[in-house]
């Protein structure tokens, strides 16, 4: 029986790790492509409402964001209805300028395709939302495309 005796008993063969970098790189590229770096720092609470019948906003470059919620820092802390445009807390009257700036930043052909994504907190009161949408309507004589951004919820 000695004929079939294993040569190095008890010692498992070494696994080649040469392909490990390839695997890791593959994962790396996946995450690099899929990743979206957060552009703005949120200064308001933003617990989005849930809805089931939602559609995706295609083309991120053509979406401008308006954040609404309760203030988190500084003198706005605890204030219920706050508006954030870009990186700072703003007032309702700043919205038209913001929308026009967003339009000016896009190519002329693409301006019609801009969507406004309204990211409002669950507990925002409707009078404030109404003020925001009224300003949006004021700057858009042809109607304003808006998306009430929500989390996706699947109904049972």
């Amino acid at each position, binding site marked *: 029986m000695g004929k079939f005796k294993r040569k190095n008993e008890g010692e498992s063969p070494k696994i080649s*790790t040469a392909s*490990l*970098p390839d695997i*890791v*790189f593959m*994962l*790396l590229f996946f*995450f*690099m492509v*899929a*990743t*979206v*770096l*957060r552009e703005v720092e949120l200064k308001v609470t933003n617990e989005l*409402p849930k*809805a*089931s*019948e*939602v*559609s*995706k*906003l295609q083309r*991120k470059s053509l*979406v401008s964001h308006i954040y*609404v919620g309760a203030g988190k820092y500084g003198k706005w802390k605890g204030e219920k209805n706050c508006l954030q445009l870009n990186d700072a807390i703003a007032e309702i009257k700043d919205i038209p300028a913001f929308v026009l700036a967003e339009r000016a930043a896009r190519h002329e052909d693409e301006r019609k395709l801009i*969507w406004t*994504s*309204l990211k*409002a*907190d*669950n*507990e*925002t*009161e*409707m*009078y404030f*939302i*109404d003020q925001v*949408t*009224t300003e*949006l*309507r*004021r700057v*858009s*004589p*042809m*109607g*304003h*495309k*808006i*998306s*009430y*951004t*929500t*989390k*996706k919820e699947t109904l049972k």
Partner: protein
Amino acid sequence: MSKSRRSLPEINAGSMADIAFLLLIFFLVTTTMDVDTGIKRKLPPLPDEENIPTQVDFHKNNILIFDCSPSSDKILVETGADESGNGKPFATHELKNEIITFLTNYGKNPDLSESPSKAVLSIRVHKKTQYETYVKIQDQISIAYKELRNNEALRKFNSKFENLDKEKQDIVKKEYPMRVSESIKE
């Protein structure tokens, strides 16, 4: 030429995996993979002198009103034919069926709509109503219209609404135009 000049010294690639891991972990931590999803609507322009909304002679029964007060989580549903304040309370997830019955009435019940193309849904919010409630109503409206349009698309073109081309979608949309009005009160 000597042999050593021709063959390049081998670079040790052993640390490549480490470097790649480092980058991988960075991206794993910073990544957020949420795509923006939302309920899409088109806001009408504000009325002014040049742009006066055309007065349409509505039959009152073509309007379905959702009245949401901030104090209760139920939503009062009434048609324009009802006396105001006489709405029936519904939980938000029950609204879909109400909307569908209202839209597909075709004049059977004199209190409900004459046809889907004449019907108007009206959301009446109060100043202090929470945004969440409003979004839920909008969602229910979307669900109801999706179902109706899908049925119509299946009947007419034997295909789901979302799979139709734009022309055919417009035909179906014309049958079921989504008309939502909003108002805010104290």
